[in-house]
């Protein structure tokens, strides 16, 4: 009965039926796998190779070893962009998670028009980030913008949201959170609906208040969902680009003094504006290492606070 490894016949199955099923399976996943290989795998490999070259995209690349990485470590723009990215992460991850949890809890109640509200909250997710950013740019425009006009009766703010280095990240964070809430709300809703009703009923019988049920039942039972959302939004925060690109394009691309230049935006600037493709690839590689480290750290940390319901009994 020993299986002879390496034989295609055995890999696909031992009977004509299993082989046919296996072939069907392979055929069905082929489009996605090929797409992933061509549009993700190959660019990733090329980017890795390019990171060790000096290349302006037109002349032949020149191998320069680790020069791009040593330059990166001493480039104040890189460290500034890392700081900007971390600031956005700190803004958007907790606020986004808390707001989407709040909306999910609200829309988990038996409300009239619940489906309509769920759809409305989900709409930003399917809205193009570019289109949304343009609209939010108008909202945040000083003097003529919607926000300032709404606040006019109480004196208005007339703040230069999109140019002031101390304010520019607020509009970017608002758009990011606004667009994330719907998606995370759906995940939280699924998590909420997976909590056995019996737990809440037992707590009610024991006289637990609404807050106590939330604190000691809902939150712990949602910890695995919350963990997923935190991981996704941390990775998403490292990739913030469109919002910065659109919202600062007309006033001061990347913010005054790089105040809105995220790592992804710096990569774009160096690569596609400055034609330093090798250096941009090195930034991409650095982003990958940072994101991987943060995710591994989160995975390690989850053992302390994430509760997975056991199915073994």
């Amino acid at each position: 009965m020993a299986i002879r490894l390496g034989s295609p016949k055995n890999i696909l199955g031992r009977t004509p039926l299993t082989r046919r099923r296996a072939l069907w399976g392979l055929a069905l996943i082929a489009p996605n796998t090929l797409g992933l290989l061509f549009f993700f795998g190959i660019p990733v490999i090329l980017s890795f190779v390019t990171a060790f070259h000096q290349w302006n995209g037109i002349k032949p690349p020149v191998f320069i070893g680790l020069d791009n990485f040593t330059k990166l470590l001493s480039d104040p723009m890189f460290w500034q962009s890392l700081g900007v990215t971390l600031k956005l992460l700190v803004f958007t991850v907790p606020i986004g998670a808390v707001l989407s949890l709040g909306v999910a809890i609200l829309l988990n109640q038996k409300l009239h028009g619940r489906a309509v509200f769920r759809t409305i909250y989900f709409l930003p997710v399917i809205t193009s980030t570019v289109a949304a950013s343009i609209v939010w740019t108008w909202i945040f425009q000083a003097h003529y913008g919607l926000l300032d006009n709404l606040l006019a009766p109480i004196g208005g703010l007339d703040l230069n949201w999109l140019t002031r280095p101390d304010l520019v990240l607020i509009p970017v964070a608002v758009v990011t959170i606004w667009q994330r809430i719907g998606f995370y709300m759906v995940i939280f809703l699924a998590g909420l609906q997976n909590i056995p009703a019996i737990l809440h009923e037992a707590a009610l019988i024991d006289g637990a208040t609404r807050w106590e049920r939330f604190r000691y039942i809902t939150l712990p039972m949602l910890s695995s969902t919350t963990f997923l959302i935190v991981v996704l939004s941390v990775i998403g925060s490292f990739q913030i680009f469109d919002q910065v690109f659109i919202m600062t394009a007309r006033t001061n691309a990347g913010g005054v003094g790089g105040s809105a230049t995220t790592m992804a935006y710096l990569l774009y600037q160096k690569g596609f504006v400055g034609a330093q493709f090798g250096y941009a690839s090195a930034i991409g590689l650095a982003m990958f290492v940072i994101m991987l480290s943060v995710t591994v750290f989160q995975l390690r940390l989850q053992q302390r606070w994430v509760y997975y319901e056991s199915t073994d009994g």
Partner: protein
Amino acid sequence: MVSTKRLSVLLLVVLLIGVLSLPAQAQDATAEATTSVTTAGATIPAAKCDQPGALTVRTWDENWAKTIKAATDAWVSEYCPGATVTVDQVPWSNYWDKLKVDASSGDLPDVFNLNQATGFYYADNGSLVDLTPYFAKSGIQSTIWGSGLVDPYRYGDNKDIYAAPMEWVTAAIYYNKDLFDKAGLAYPTAAWTWDDFAKDAAALTDKANGVYGAAVYAEYQAGWGGWVASEGVPPLVTQDRTTCTLTEPGSVDAFNFLKGMLDKGEMPTISQMGGSGADDEYNLFKSGKIGMYLGGNWKLPNAKTDLTFNWDIVQMPHNPKTGLSRAALHASAFAAASNSKDPALSANLVQYLISDEGQKFFADAGGTAPSDPSPALQQGWLAASGLNGKNVQAFIDATKDSQGTTQFSGDSIDKAYSDMMTNIFDLGMSVEDATKAACAAMAPDLTKAS
């Protein structure tokens, strides 16, 4: 009556011949007027193509795209039957990024527009066809264009031509006559000064109705560059690109003059305009919220159709110290891509587009002034502008003493300049601090240029 008309036309022709020679002297802001290098009245011939083929032409301007389409149709029927041309318009905001990406993948369109700041980059990277031999074959001398128009497109030891000028543009003040009437002001004349301009801006400002007197600083070409040049200082960097000029007293004075009006609420900030571009200024001008706007002659077709109030154009005011009214001058060009399947055919199309025949399409469109110095074409452009009663002549007069666009490239220069503008015109930083910071920030790229 008839003789007066003829005399006027003759004078105009003489003036136009002079105008097209003047870009040559515009290169050095501090130089005195130099002699003309333009061969007045010379013709630029088109040539039959050897073999037809399929070409793509890319431009950034929607008005140009229409004109280029008409011109290329004529090229096909007259000079290259059987050829096909696709005109591709990519908006300015994406144009340069897309061009760079296409250059890196060897997918540049066969023929495309370049500006003076980018010509060197593409020539230096081997992306352009050397047009010199093709032009020489047809007897076209590059000296037919003023040096201010063509020199930025020369490359290599022999100063060969890698792109050919297709137009000339400069800037003047567009003003809202209705607002002038409302404020009881006399219309400005070519003799006006910065003081007159400032007084008019103050009088035109109507804070209660959200009307600003002026918006004239937004961009190098149709903005602050002209004000600094009128102080006798080359804007941004010296022509050899080794020295930042922003901290020179003339630059600082010009910026302080503009900022003074901004601080008094007579000009909108960048945030109030929603952008730092000349088009952002134009949009406010169009909506009747700006009394005076500094714009290029490329905006004439838009002004003709967009503006619903009475308006006119006047030359930039004269600096009271130097007496200069010096607007920035620029010429965009056509280049042929070296990655083209048929570089000779692409060069042939470029030659047609800058020839007397091709340029007639631009002249007849009335917006972009043709680079071809033929008096008939220049006259045709004026007539075709269809702006009877408007002082389009102001643009031609502006070229009499204009500032050639200083070429610059480099991330740090672009960013430093952009930050300086926001710092001064939006965040209230002093001109002295902002210009000093900008010069420090662009230092790495300036050193490289030397």
